[in-house]
């Protein structure tokens, strides 16, 4: 279907909004009425029609505005995009992966014409038509990773693989859940995850690393992760935390439904062919509590998950202070009925809310 791109902002007046279509395909991350860390990996080989899983790199109504927001962040702080010298080849791998995927998956929006190493890339939504020589950096306005990720939604961590570990040696990180590429670049898998509570003790990272080291070409994987953000703010960076942190205190019982957003990351993992690097796109989807509660199953479940989450996780995810206000809001929808298993909305089978 043709996508109508929103003209919206993720800062200042926060005109970001989700259409009914976007709400229906929102990646609700809780498959049951409670949450704990797990290595919830599955193959990334498509999914239900019009779901966010269907394409290799999902393009949605927020695309053009998200790319505008990324350009603002980069102008203000170019260190959000960095690539250590040995990662340039991985950048070309990534450029190829995205251009091939998008031109095949969205032929009405993107075109890739290849004649040997002479390539022409057409990005219609962004009005880009560039010809360049593949593997020749001088023919692009940016390095290959920066060039293509300025045109692709989601953050991108490009991981070098050596010594049985993964190393965060390049990235485009402008919509991060409070971690700094500039600080973490060059770290291995355990080091950059060091601040995450509980998961180390549960052996999560050891198992996740084993899985990721063995991802093969053509067999990408995916998982969902989540946090909460006040206002539809993409740039929740530590660099700017002293500016946006105060927004967490700006909610009232009247505004919590509109301002409190569930922030879901679709994390995917692709092996890159020439460099043997692993690219880790982290795609962010935002949805307000008031929009989520329009789906009865999600309204019931969101209340139960937020209510029962261990304090350490609520603290790490940065919403422990606001949790009572959220629960006051969400409890008005939860009628106590059981919910079906799985993340899908099940609109045809789940009963309407009996309260709220």
């Amino acid at each position, binding site marked *: 279907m043709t996508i109508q791109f929103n003209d919206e902002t993720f800062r200042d007046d926060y005109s970001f909004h989700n259409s009914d279509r976007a709400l229906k395909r929102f990646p609700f991350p809780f498959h049951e009425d409670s949450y704990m860390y797990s290595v919830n990996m599955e193959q990334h080989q498509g999914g239900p029609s019009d779901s966010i899983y269907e394409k290799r790199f999902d393009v949605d109504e927020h695309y053009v505005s998200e790319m505008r927001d990324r350009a603002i962040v980069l102008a203000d702080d170019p260190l959000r995009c960095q690539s250590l010298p040995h990662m340039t080849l991985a950048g070309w791998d990534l450029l190829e992966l995205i251009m091939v995927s998008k031109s095949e998956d969205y032929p009405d929006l993107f075109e890739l014409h290849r004649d040997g190493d002479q390539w022409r890339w057409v990005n219609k939504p962004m009005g880009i038509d560039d010809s360049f020589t593949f593997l020749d950096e001088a023919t692009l306005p940016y390095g290959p990773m920066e060039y293509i990720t300025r045109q692709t939604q989601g953050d991108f961590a490009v991981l070098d693989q050596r010594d049985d570990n993964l190393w965060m040696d390049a990235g485009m990180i402008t919509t991060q859940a409070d971690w700094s590429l500039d*600080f973490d670049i060059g770290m291995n898998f355990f080091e950059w*995850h060091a*601040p995450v509570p509980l998961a180390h003790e549960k052996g999560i990272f050891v198992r996740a690393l084993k899985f990721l080291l063995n991802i093969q070409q053509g067999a990408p994987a995916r998982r969902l992760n989540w946090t909460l953000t006040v206002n539809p703010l993409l740039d929740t960076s530590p660099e700017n*935390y002293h500016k946006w*942190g*105060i927004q967490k205190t700006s909610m009232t019982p009247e505004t919590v439904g509109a301002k409190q957003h569930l922030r879901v990351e679709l994390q995917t993992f692709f092996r890159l062919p020439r460099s043997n690097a692993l690219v880790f796109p982290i795609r962010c989807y935002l949805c307000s509590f008031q929009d989520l509660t329009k789906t009865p199953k999600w309204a019931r479940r969101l209340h139960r998950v937020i209510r029962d989450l261990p304090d350490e996780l609520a603290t790490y995810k940065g919403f422990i202070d606001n949790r009572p206000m959220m629960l006051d809001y969400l409890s008005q929808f939860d009628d106590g009925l059981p919910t079906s298993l799985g993340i899908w909305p099940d609109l045809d089978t789940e009963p309407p809310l009996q309260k709220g």
Partner: protein
Amino acid sequence: MSKFAFPPSMTSRPVYGRLEPRAGSAHLMIADAEGAEAILDVATPDMMAKAHIIYIPKGTDFGDRLRALSPAQYYEGPSYAAAEQRIAKAFDDAKMGLQVYLSGTEGVIGQAQHAAMQAGVPHTAIQTEHRGSTARRMQCVHCKGITEDVETDPFQCSHCGLHLFVRDHYSRRLAAFQGVNIDAEDPGNVPEAKGIYE
């Protein structure tokens, strides 16, 4: 007593060992303040005949005892920054078989370790031992300013003035711990500063 037992912490936080004498074609020893004690503990006449000691006293008086070890080369300087070019040249000139010994505060160990890794010295040829102050080299995540020898938490950034929580999260590339604004969500509510391990 200059030895401090660091409590267990997150996986990005460096851990330190005890220097031990190793066979090597040359020995580069970089230390500050009480780090001198670790060199004095490990030094042997054989090692010293092939040793280059770079030492930053920081107001301590170990210099004479280090010189008395009769290392092949000895340098004493006022700061790591002052010694940095000499350290860079020592790594540039290094041959296979060099053993590196780093001791003293975390700031000097971290910076010298970074220089060694950049120069391609294998990590198996680098030993570290913490001695003396537990003060930290810290990067403010907001203004990116680095402050040496941070002793308290919270700490007011010496560059941008924000009050920072001094995290255990550590970057080997920057040789620094991370400082993050502590009162962003409640401006002015800054806990009283305490010593980092008090």
